[in-house]
């Protein structure tokens, strides 16, 4: 393994896997999640407490496997969102300050509804946020591409890398 560079020490990436989440107040970190297909990436950032979190949800509803939701809440939207916010509150984030960004939820060409997981993930997210009076700050959802998502904890900036496109784009600047 190569020895770490000084710059490297101050720019570390924490990878959030599929059906996983991470929350931190360490400004040297960038939270990253790859390969959002029909999955949704949800980032939250409190600019005052400088606390951010990233969640990579695969499926809308935990009722399909409640045991799994217990062990791995980030698998499902209805268990993942509360887990993400709870973890951020522990680091002194406050609900009214939190900015929410969303990416992913790609959708195939399907009129049958059997393959609309991306859409269902997004609908579930909206309904949970509505219930709690929360709004999405910025989003890039749907379409026919998979995406990677990065949350910079120093600035709260959220960037996206869209598969097939060479450059990263900024989804949200705080």
């Amino acid at each position: 393994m190569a020895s770490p560079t000084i710059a490297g020490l101050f720019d570390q990436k924490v990878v959030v896997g599929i059906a996983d989440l991470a929350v931190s107040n360490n400004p040297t970190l960038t939270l990253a999640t790859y390969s959002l297909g029909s999955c949704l990436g949800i980032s939250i950032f409190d600019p005052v407490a400088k606390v951010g979190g990233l969640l990579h949800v695969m499926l809308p509803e935990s009722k399909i496997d409640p045991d799994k939701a217990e062990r791995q809440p980030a698998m499902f939207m209805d268990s993942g969102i509360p887990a993400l916010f709870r973890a951020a509150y522990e680091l002194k984030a406050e609900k009214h300050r939190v900015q929410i960004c969303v990416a992913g939820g790609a959708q195939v060409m399907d009129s049958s509804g059997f393959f609309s997981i991306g859409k269902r993930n997004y609908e579930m997210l909206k309904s949970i946020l509505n219930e709690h009076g929360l709004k999405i700050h910025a989003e890039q959802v749907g379409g026919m591409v998979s995406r990677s998502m990065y949350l910079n904890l120093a600035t709260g900036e959220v960037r996206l890398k869209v598969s097939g496109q060479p450059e990263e784009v900024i989804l949200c600047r705080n």
Partner: protein
Amino acid sequence: MQELDDYINKVKHLPPAPVVLPQLLPLLNQPDIDCSRVVEVITYDQSLTAAVIQTCNSAYFAGRSPVDDIQEAIQRLGFREVYQIVLAVSGARVLGPAQKGYGIAEGELWKHSVCTAVAAQLMAEDKGEDTSLVFTAALMHDVGKLVLAGALESIYAKVVEETEQNQYSLLETEKKLLGVQHAEVGGRLLARWKFPANLVSAVWFHHQPEAAKPHEKLASYVYLGNMIAHFMGYGFGHQAFALRGRAEALEILGLTADDLARYMMKTLEKFEEVQKLFGALKED
């Protein structure tokens, strides 16, 4: 058929034929596998043989004393395990490179193919099917993209227009712009490489499984495996999700939309395990 052959023959850089695979595949279902025949087939390809031995000695199979020849590897691991390794090594060789015409970076098509194969195999396993056949078919399903990528490179903007504005699938767009599409080209290529007819048919019709009759089940495993790989984010390149939902694939296999979600969860677990074996897979 002639049209497909003409198209394939015109392409300058065809992917290397995985010659060992179609020879090993029929041996899998023999009740008494002749080990010397397996050794003979594998050693045809020296670098493959070396890779199999090296993989047997890798950390994945840690805790055992090292193997130094292929016969020993087969005896120790069993033919099925060795077949998986051969599949991993020769599959990565064919599917590893970047496919610029599709906006697919190096390693991405391979990752997509492995995820498809894992998902398809999990479904097939539960239905008591021949999992090696399903795994192989699913792994090779996009091989036709390697043939078309070059031609698509210069007409990328048109592909986006056809899919986004005109709502054509990627497959329909290829057919419209190039006269052929990747599924049929892949099927034809595998037939030329002497893969069995059922596998050829499943790849040929992996976007419309019902048309693969009498091999519609095999094609449906590949279709749904491909769908799951896309859902899980392992569908790379521009407009990768421009594919049609075929509810009949679920019907053919007797599965529901909830089953699909359950297989996504199972695939996630299994994929991590397989990635350890197929060590060439790396996260960026």
